[in-house]
């Protein structure tokens, strides 16, 4: 709709966010901001050992402390009928054998398998009382041998994390055609081989996980910081408690960052629900930061042997990757599918690579389970191919942009089905790269490098051209639209805000259709009583959720048009709708939208609409990073960062750029400073606080040049939008790493640089530069 209102507040405009007035005033509603009368607090006693048998739990001393209300163990929960969360159901074990089962109890039963695993729950009338009670519980452990690193888990005679998991393999997947790939490698003019580690990370949202359980009307309500409230409800009801789904309500207020870590149900959610149900009083649990490092799902953690076969002209003949993924102590559905299927879907990325041989193995260790973290498999996959492309460029003495260009899928090949059977609807990859090269002034690099050299710095440049898969594989979404006779339009969506500004973008879409001012639009989320859905993950909110909102809005206008026709005693086709008013064409007989709603029996015009988009969207981009390396110390600084991003269509360009740049800083964090490290032997997490886990700070990047290319709308959803939430993170990591390697290569240390693994902390870079053992 091209009305004045839509032009100002509809899609395509950088409308100021409707979420912001409350948040900047400190009037947000994060879970811990809510307190209920009679509230109790939950403290969890966690395993200090990476692997141990639980011999006995003695809670007598805890129960005797003032303010301690209850103590629960894993045995208590078993007795109460709770079932464990099942392990991944999708993939077989190695060689096609049955996959080992790794059932996950909310509180450990018999055995603990990672440092930080929850063992005993203590409920107290105050947080202090709960913690004092927790400290007074005595657990008798019998330590068992542990493995925390991949090599150790895979070594002959390694201790077993699970008795049923031979050699600690949880699952395996193979994709492609090994024979065809071998043949491609045999005839190749060049073979590039890299060992690549994509290190374990902490998603580290600023707001830790928080859950507040309450008991009303015979059922439990969980208020929590979650991206997927329906998923949590369904898991707890169906898989754990055996409750009908109307016996649990999950509500979500403001979420202080999710990044994939807050998808899915956690043991702590189950414990809070159980305590609330058993005690019939409110129970609050808020993770402490060190607790969060230990028990919130971790990200990434794979090691790959990756090889590229090329002909003499730099055309890729075959891609072979063998990846071992350290999924932690439990083979969760999410953690395993990310590495065994989702990442592989994009391993060939924007390149026309038909012959692949992918072998992915999920390996168990005595570490925190790995789950989704911004990109969830795609950063790992794109890192592999973009590192290979740069290595190939170096080996063939070709420009890194040129070797990519030679292999890119051309627009006339669209729709293109890749070697993993995924179909891309659209994409002009070469155009995006060409634009990015210009934006980054790729051609002017030498002059900048000379200037850096004058200041004693080594300058390098790196690029990543890539696409990614979005949608979470769930394309349907249900939306309700309520035009109220009180003068507002309320839309309910089961997608979930976590900082990405979707309420604003949704409101803009509603303005597009209804033509009313944005302050009359209310976007409601986060209540499983109001509606269910997949939630927000995989960058699906706008292209799936937003499309559903547009469809629902149009259906509502259509329904209202029929009602207006009745009210105005004419046929619907004689009615036109403009900016909130239904008018009989060619007359001045009219009725306002809200007036019409007020006239209805239930004072509203209400539509419950379910619709689906056709396919994932395939956002794609070229990210170019320049770095300066201090040769005396190895310190890497980001000197510039430019990107061109095919986002299809931007509903709110400022919000989209914010997602890209914020995501890029997370990607740079992986490249340059973040690492979750376990101590070999003791199995302790060494990076368990912000004293040792280095998150990016304000001085990491000074400016971004971020361009949105909206020339290539997505063809498989009505909005033309491609999901952007994870795109920046995916591109930044290889762009930055390629830049550092380039800097070192120009200084004569290319071979050592290519063997570097992330994070490229100063000592590693310095050691590579100077040939010292790292």
């Amino acid at each position: 709709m091209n009305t004045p209102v839509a032009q100002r507040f509809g899609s395509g405009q950088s409308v100021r966010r409707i979420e912001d007035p409350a948040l900047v005033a400190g009037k947000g509603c994060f879970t811990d901001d809510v307190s209920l009368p009679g509230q109790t607090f939950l403290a969890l006693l966690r395993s200090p050992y990476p692997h141990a048998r639980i011999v006995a739990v003695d809670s007598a001393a805890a129960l005797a402390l003032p303010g301690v209300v209850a103590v629960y163990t894993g045995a208590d929960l078993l007795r109460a009928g709770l079932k464990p969360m099942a392990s991944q159901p999708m993939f077989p074990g190695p060689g096609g054998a049955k996959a080992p089962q790794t059932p996950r109890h909310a509180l450990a039963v018999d055995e603990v398998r990672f440092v930080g695993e929850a063992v005993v729950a203590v409920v107290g009338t105050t947080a202090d009382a709960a913690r004092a009670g927790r400290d007074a519980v005595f657990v008798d452990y019998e330590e068992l041998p542990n493995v925390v690193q991949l090599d150790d888990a895979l070594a002959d005679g390694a201790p077993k994390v699970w008795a049923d998991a031979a050699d600690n393999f949880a699952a395996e997947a193979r994709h492609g055609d090994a024979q065809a790939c071998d043949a491609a490698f045999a005839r190749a003019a060049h073979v590039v081989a890299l060992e690549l580690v994509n290190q374990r990370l902490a998603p580290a949202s600023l707001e830790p996980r928080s859950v507040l359980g309450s008991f009303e009307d015979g059922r439990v309500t969980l208020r929590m910081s979650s991206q997927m409230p329906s998923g949590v409800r369904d898991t707890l009801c169906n898989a754990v408690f055996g409750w009908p789904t109307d016996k649990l309500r999950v509500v979500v207020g403001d979420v202080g960052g999710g990044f994939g870590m807050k998808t899915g149900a956690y043991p702590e959610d189950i414990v809070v629900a159980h305590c609330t149900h058993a005690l019939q009083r409110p129970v609050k649990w808020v993770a402490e930061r060190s607790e969060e490092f230990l028990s919130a799902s971790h990200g990434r953690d794979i090691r790959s042997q990756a090889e590229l076969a090329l002909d003499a002209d730099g055309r890729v003949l075959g891609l072979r990757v063998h990846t071992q993924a350290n999924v932690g102590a439990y083979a969760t559905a999410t953690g395993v599918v990310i590495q065994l299927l989702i990442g592989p879907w994009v391993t060939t990325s924007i390149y026309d690579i038909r012959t692949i041989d992918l072998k992915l193995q999920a390996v168990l260790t005595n570490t925190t389970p790995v789950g989704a973290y911004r990109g969830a498999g795609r950063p790992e996959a794109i890192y592999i191919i973009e590192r290979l492309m740069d290595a190939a460029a170096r080996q063939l003495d070709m420009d890194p942009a040129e070797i990519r260009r030679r292999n890119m899928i051309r627009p006339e090949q669209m729709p293109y089905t890749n070697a993993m059977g995924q179909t891309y609807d659209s994409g002009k990859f070469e155009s995006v790269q060409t634009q990015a090269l210009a934006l980054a002034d790729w051609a002017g690099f030498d002059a900048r490098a000379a200037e850096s050299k004058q200041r004693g710095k080594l300058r390098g440049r790196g690029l990543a051209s890539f696409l990614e898969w979005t949608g979470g594989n769930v394309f349907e979404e249900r939306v309700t639209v309520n035009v109220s006779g009180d003068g507002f339009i309320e839309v309910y969506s089961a997608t979930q805000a976590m900082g990405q500004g979707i309420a604003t973008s949704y409101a803009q879409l509603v303005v597009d259709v209804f033509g009313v001012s944005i302050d009359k639009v209310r976007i409601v989320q986060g209540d499983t009583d109001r509606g269910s859905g997949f939630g927000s993950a995989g960058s699906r909110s706008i292209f799936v959720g937003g499309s559903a909102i547009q469809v629902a809005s149009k259906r509502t206008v259509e329904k209202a048009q029929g009602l207006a026709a009745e009210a105005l005693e004419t046929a619907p086709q004689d009615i036109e709708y403009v900016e909130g008013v239904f008018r009989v064409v060619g007359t001045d007989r009219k009725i306002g939208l809200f007036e019409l709603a007020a006239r209805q029996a239930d004072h509203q015009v209400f539509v419950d609409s379910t619709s689906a988009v056709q396919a994932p969207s395939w956002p794609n981009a070229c990210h170019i990073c320049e770095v300066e390396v201090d040769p005396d110390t190895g310190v890497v600084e980001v000197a510039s960062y430019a990107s061109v991003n095919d986002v299809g269509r931007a509903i709110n360009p400022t919000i989209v750029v914010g997602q890209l740049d914020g995501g890029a800083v997370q990607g740079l964090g992986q490249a340059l400073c973040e690492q979750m490290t376990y101590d070999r032997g003791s199995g302790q997490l060494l990076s368990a606080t912000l004293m040792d886990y280095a998150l990016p700070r304000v001085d990491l990047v000074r400016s971004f040049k971020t361009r949105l290319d909206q020339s290539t709308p997505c063809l498989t959803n009505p909005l033309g939008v491609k999901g952007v939430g994870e795109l920046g993170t995916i591109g930044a990591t290889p762009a930055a790493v390629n830049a550092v390697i380039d800097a070192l290569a120009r200084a004569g240390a290319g071979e050592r640089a290519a063997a570097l693994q992330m994070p490229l902390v100063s000592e590693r870079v310095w050691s590579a530069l100077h040939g010292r053992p790292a």
Partner: protein
Amino acid sequence: MSSLTLEVNGQATRLQVDSHRLLVEVLREQLGLTGTHVGCDTSQCGACTVLLDGAPVRSCTLLAVQAEGRKVTTIEGLGGIGAERHPIQQAFIDCHGLQCGFCTPGMIMSTAALLQHTPNPSQEQIEHALEGNLCRCTGYVNIVAAVKQAAATLAQGTKP
């Protein structure tokens, strides 16, 4: 339990507190000022930043009793909604300087402290002032832009 007298957001306040209570706990739980957030347990993230006699402090690393007789300003005291909004808050909105909003009150209070003594801060001075405030969502660039815009607005004397 002992008696604590202090000024919070311009209001004389008298409370009974245990000596081991942190200022952030007292603000959030006893005074209902939940705009100040707790994001870590090693005094590093800055989400709990408030002003103590105009200077930035970590309210998670200050006992409430240490604020005896002092003036505490939280995000709620800096500005509110609508007409009560402070130019710094407005700048954060205008520049898309927040996403999830959890770090935002701390960022804004650190900004308020900076602009009080450095009304026209350089890039370096802004980075120095915010080095103790973590953000996981925005990537910081828009936050820095917001600080610059706030400085410009305040310099024009729009609001004292």
